[in-house]
């Protein structure tokens, strides 16, 4: 078990709790106090985590399936096309994706989830396809030569071997999604970004800083948890 991960996980958790208590006790003015209370902060967390969870879960399902599909010999020509699309798509800022979906689907939580899901697809798709493609051909050929069925080659060889790489993609994707979800407040989807965005518009620094610290700590916390999982999956 990696001690540094564990320390960061504990520290980021404790710091979040401390931050919440500090700002609830010292909101810095009446206007900020309306947002800086346990109820509102809990709700912001719920919205934030729900956005990240739903978008990421849906992205994992779709991307891993798609990644498996494009690494089948039949689709081999598609793999490089998908790689190119992913590379170009990643130069589009997450804010732009949120804004574009907003113009078609309107403000709100479900618009944000949809946009976040789309953005979260990319790293997982890329890592799934790379993780499977990078398995040494000798391993696959051995499995085939010994009479393993294609399904078993996928489930017993390819996926277990690609799993650490796929997990790395999931980690990247989740961290990006936590950040993008903080921007979702701009299209009225709530979350911890609400504190920042409201704080900016009413010029209340405590709100801005509280939102900043809490969303930063949430990203660090999830990143370290996923790093720990990724590490435990690595084949030694």
């Amino acid at each position, binding site marked *: 078990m990696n001690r540094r991960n564990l320390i960061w996980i504990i520290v980021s958790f404790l710091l979040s709790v401390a931050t919440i208590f500090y700002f609830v006790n010292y909101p810095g003015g009446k206007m900020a106090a309306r947002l800086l209370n346990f109820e509102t902060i809990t709700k912001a967390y719920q919205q934030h985590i729900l956005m990240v969870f739903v978008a990421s879960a849906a992205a994992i399902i779709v991307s891993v399936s798609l990644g498996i599909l494009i690494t089948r010999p039949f689709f081999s020509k598609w793999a490089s096309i998908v790689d190119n699309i992913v590379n170009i798509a990643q130069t589009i800022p997450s804010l732009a994706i949120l804004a574009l979906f907003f113009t078609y689907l309107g403000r709100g939580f479900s618009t944000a989830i949809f946009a976040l899901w789309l953005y979260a697809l990319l790293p997982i798709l890329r890592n799934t396809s790379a993780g499977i493609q990078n398995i040494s051909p000798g391993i696959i050929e051995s499995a085939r*030569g010994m009479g393993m069925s294609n399904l078993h080659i996928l489930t017993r060889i390819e996926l277990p071997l690609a799993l650490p790489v796929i997990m790395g993609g999931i980690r990247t994707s989740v961290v990006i999604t936590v950040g993008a979800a903080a921007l979702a407040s701009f299209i009225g989807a709530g979350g911890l970004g609400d504190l920042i965005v409201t704080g900016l518009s009413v010029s209340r620094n405590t709100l801005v800083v509280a939102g900043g610290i809490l969303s930063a700590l949430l990203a660090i916390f999830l990143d370290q948890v996923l790093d720990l999982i990724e590490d435990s999956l690595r*084949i030694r």
Partner: protein
Amino acid sequence: MIKIKYENVVKQFPGSDHLAVDNLNMEVHEGEICILVGPSGCGKTTSMKMTNRIFEHTSGHIYIDGVDNRDINPIELRLGIGYVIQEIGLFPHMTIADNVATVLVEKKWPKNKIHQRVEEMLNLVGLDPEIYSKRRPSGLSGGQRQRVGVARALASDPPVMLMDEPFGAVDPITRARLQNEFLRLQEQMKKTIIFVTHDIDEAIKMGDRIAVMRYGQLVQYATPDDLLSMPANDFVSSLVGGNRSIKRLNLIKVEDIDLYRPPEVAEGDSKTKVVEAVAGDKLGVALVVDDRGKLVGTVTNTDLKRKGEYVKDIYAPAHDLVGPKSTLRDTLSIMLGYGEGYALAVDQEGKPRGAVSVDDIFSAVKDNE
């Protein structure tokens, strides 16, 4: 009896304008090792891989036990054929035991039978299951990985084996040892084996029959002896190379020649006894055996200079021994490395069989020509 038959087999890869395999006709006899040898790109690996339909042939037929391999479902076909490739392709995420069990799991053997079989196979290739079965491939040396590869291919006891340079990626000494062990196993198993190599020495040592290939065509298909004495054309003679007498040493095994037996002494014998023994021996050596009769060391004049009352205090531990299946070529290189004019041979239990001297090797080559 014919086990595998290639009939007008042609392979052209898509997008290529030449034939990878050009009208191959060949019969592989049951229980024999058939070596495919030739320069890279000669079609040897392709020919091997068409046998279990890793590659599908463009035209012609491949029969296994008289059945066209195209009429057998590829999965079924492969489950009945052992497969070892040069990269070995051990699954890095699985334990050694799980690797060896691969085909058995695919064949849906019951768990306890698999466990038993895996232990049996690991013992067979000389890996202690207690130590190795729970390890992963990364915790093994190159030679040990190759052993696991062989154990994995043999696990379901397939009558036919395909091996593509299975001993390619190890140092020469380990390689010779693996080859010897495999030949010893084969003596009991009598598998039908198609074995690909680019090393003509390995071909001569391992093969019952050798197929020399070039540009996708079969140039000569003969026993090692015939290949050495009657190469079909210049290509084969250049492949076999000069020094055919030395190559021939690959064909003669230690057990084929009469061995001289130096005197034996026990570990507990006194120094005086061993002084006599060494003095009376024509090679100037006495063999030291333990109470179970195993060879543990030797005493020569150099060792006699050491202080000590008993043999056990002065003898030099035995090393670089040869077995009955070792070829005279391996024996010669051990002899040269050892710096003595002889090499010691032991049987499978480690009991001394005798000494092979340089003179023995000279006369063996002369008799054989």
